[in-house]
């Protein structure tokens, strides 16, 4: 289990300067989540939200200055015992340019005691990647496949993927995802994946969290997340339902629009909770529409002003 408790992280301004927790760029602000074993966890967030920073903290690349990150009860920074359970794939592949695929396998085998050449051979065969060609000559997609092969071969309990499917064509994306899921299910491993692609997270993950400007907005099972929001359409002859009326009825309105006598709003809450409150408005037509994860993402961020300045 990965437990992240009240983690904050501040980066100094570029150049010289002392890091002050109240100064600089606050990449993470009191983030707490727990990732149970055996799940596939998705990190969602806007650009620069702090997803990669959190992933780097989880694999010990950053020291935890405030709060704690524990892997199976152990601190992760500078702790080989905890780190041996994690394989981290970051969002770039340039660092592997010097290696051949076989060279990369040997490199990681030197560090990961449980590296399985059996898995490696099988996956290389399956993906038909050139073994002795320098990875600088690989396409971006091939590099991604190569790193995923190595990650799976390291046989770790936790696999952390930061934008790992970028550069893959849709067919290969699907294939790689299936490959990872099969491997992880076999060994009851946990995967944490960060992505901007909400559809992908929706398909792949059973849990997700949304982070924005370093602050966690929600973290839960995907089904629970989806059931926590809804879009309502209310038509009333005597005049459109106003946001104040919705608020007075105890609904948390995230977005509101009106066209004639028809009001449309995105509200927080379960379907039963919301529909139970709709009767009070005396509408001729009232409808509840469940939201997709993508819509939740957009409405949550819009509610926090993200992207609104671009749209307006």
């Amino acid at each position, binding site marked *: 289990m990965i437990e992240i408790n009240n983690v904050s992280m501040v*980066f*100094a*301004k*570029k*150049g*010289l*300067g*002392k*890091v002050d927790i109240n100064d600089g760029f606050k990449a993470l602000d009191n983030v707490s989540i727990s990732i149970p074993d055996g799940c596939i966890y998705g990190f969602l967030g806007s650009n620069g939200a702090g997803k990669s920073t959190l992933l*780097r903290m989880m*694999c*010990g*690349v*950053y*020291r935890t200055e405030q709060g704690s990150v524990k892997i*199976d009860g*152990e601190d992760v*920074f*500078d*702790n*080989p*015992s905890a*780190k*041996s359970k*994690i*394989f*981290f794939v*970051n969002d*770039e592949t*340039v*660092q*592997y340019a*010097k*290696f051949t695929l076989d*060279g990369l396998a*040997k*490199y990681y085998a*030197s*560090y*990961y*005691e449980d590296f399985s050449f059996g898995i490696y051979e099988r996956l290389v065969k399956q993906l038909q990647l050139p073994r002795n060609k320098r990875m600088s000559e690989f396409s971006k997609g091939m590099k991604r496949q190569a790193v995923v092969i190595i990650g799976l071969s390291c046989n770790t309990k936790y696999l952390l993927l930061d934008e790992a499917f970028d550069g893959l064509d849709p067919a290969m994306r699907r294939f790689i995802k299936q490959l990872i899921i099969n491997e992880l299910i076999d060994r009851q491993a946990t995967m944490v994946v960060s992505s901007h692609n909400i559809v992908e997270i929706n398909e792949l993950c059973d849990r997700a969290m949304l982070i924005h400007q370093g602050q966690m907005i929600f973290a839960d099972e995907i089904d629970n997340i989806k059931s926590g929001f809804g879009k309502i359409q209310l038509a009333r002859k005597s005049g459109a339902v106003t946001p104040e009326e919705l608020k007075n009825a105890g609904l948390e309105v995230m977005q509101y629009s009106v066209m004639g006598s028809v009001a449309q709003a995105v509200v927080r809450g379960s379907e039963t909770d919301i529909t139970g409150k709709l009767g009070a408005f005396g509408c001729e037509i009232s409808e509840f529409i469940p939201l997709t994860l993508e819509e939740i993402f957009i409405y949550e961020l819009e509610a926090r002003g993200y992207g609104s300045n671009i749209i307006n």
Partner: protein
Amino acid sequence: MAQTSSTNARYKMSFKKIVRAALAELRVHKKLAIITFVLYGVAMLLFIFNSEVWMSYDGEIPDLMHFYLSGWGVFFAVCGAAVSYFTVLNVFRDMNNQQICDVSMALPIKSSERFFSKLLSLVFIQILPQIVCVLGGNGIKILYGKLIFGFLPGEADDILLQLSVGFPTGTLFIMAIVMLCVCCCGAPAESSYFSIILMGIINVLPLCFITYLISNCAGMPYYFGNPEPIDYGYWGFLFLVDFYDKFVLHCVVGCVISIAVMFVSGLIYMKRDAKTVGNPIASRTFFEIVLVLGCVTVFMFFLMTDGMIWGFLVAAVAYIIINIIVCRAKINVLSFVKWGAKYLATAATFTLAIVIIIETGGFGYINLRPDAELLDGANFMIGYYDDDYHMPNEYTGNTRNLRADNLTPEQADKVMSICKKYMAEGSAKINPLLKIFRVSYNYDDYTRIQVRADSNKTYDERPFPRSQFNWNYKLDSGYCLDYRQDVSVPITDAREMAQELLKLDFVYEYVD
């Protein structure tokens, strides 16, 4: 739980982990190891075959082999040492490249193990090829001498052994400096150019400081009676200057310092996480120290070339430019004010230090200046520039020369006392600040007295380096004199000195 304890047990064997990680690094950088091996291999072969076989008097049996420095051999070996610069930058890329840092720091290995594995990989990539080449070279040398000529190479082949020690010393120095810079900087550019700046500082500053400051302020040229500058350059490349006398000592001390610096770098490496990766400078203390030392080096360099004003200007420009490069955040007027203030503080402290050094005669070094006491037929040449003629931008004044030949000790003492009196009084009349900014000397007002004295008997086999006062070596009878003194004085003092000297009937004016 069981998995955790078994994992912990594995990590107790850290040496095994270090070796495995070092071998993994070696595989990544094997090309650099091969390049190093080729360069040193060629260098050693050039040294070995740049030899001569000397025949004994009967002309039949070869009995001695001499090995000489091969210019191309030195060139290739220097190239081999220079590869270490790129090797360290590459091996420690995790300190300035976020992507490589992600890979490196996420690996299941402690930061200390990771550092030592990198050190070991440097040994594999840089030191091991040198050792192989040295052993191979010496093996070939023995075969060459023993099998072909039937004897072991003579003592003159020391040069090969010295090279065997010298180049690893140079390599370790480069590695230590680059390692320190890489650990204190967070960007590849800063790691690279700070390494070069720091290498320059360490090699130039002691030389400048001793040669042109303490000795000059004490009134003695460095070669006269002072310890050689090399004695202060134990760390760096100055050991190459003294290839015979204290070579091994310099190499050993240099290696020890380099290793100590590497361990300091290690402490910084272990303390860092990925947070400062990408920032130009990770350690502000390091940055400030390098800037101050850099300024002092520029000041010293221009001080010795009589262009102190230019020194302040060049250092100021370099100081500001480096700050601009390093400060990748927003620059505003306040930034310039801050940098300017720090620079002025550095320059003021330096000026104050120079004044103190001048006033104390080079921290009392002046007391070591020899007196002319005993000699065996002394000859004096005393000269100064007289300002009769000068043209814009080009001095064309007269040189006035006084001479005295074959003097007795008493006569020599008289000459010396007059010279010393005017040199001391004249020098004291010059404002210490004027001494610092020698560029402002005016030929109408000032001149430089040069006093040269030597005895009829000279000591031909002076030890190298001349680390003792070479003016009073005892010969069979009496002493030999070798006295040199250059002092700037007001021109009126020089003229008065000449007048007083010419009153002595054994001093005459020499006209070329």
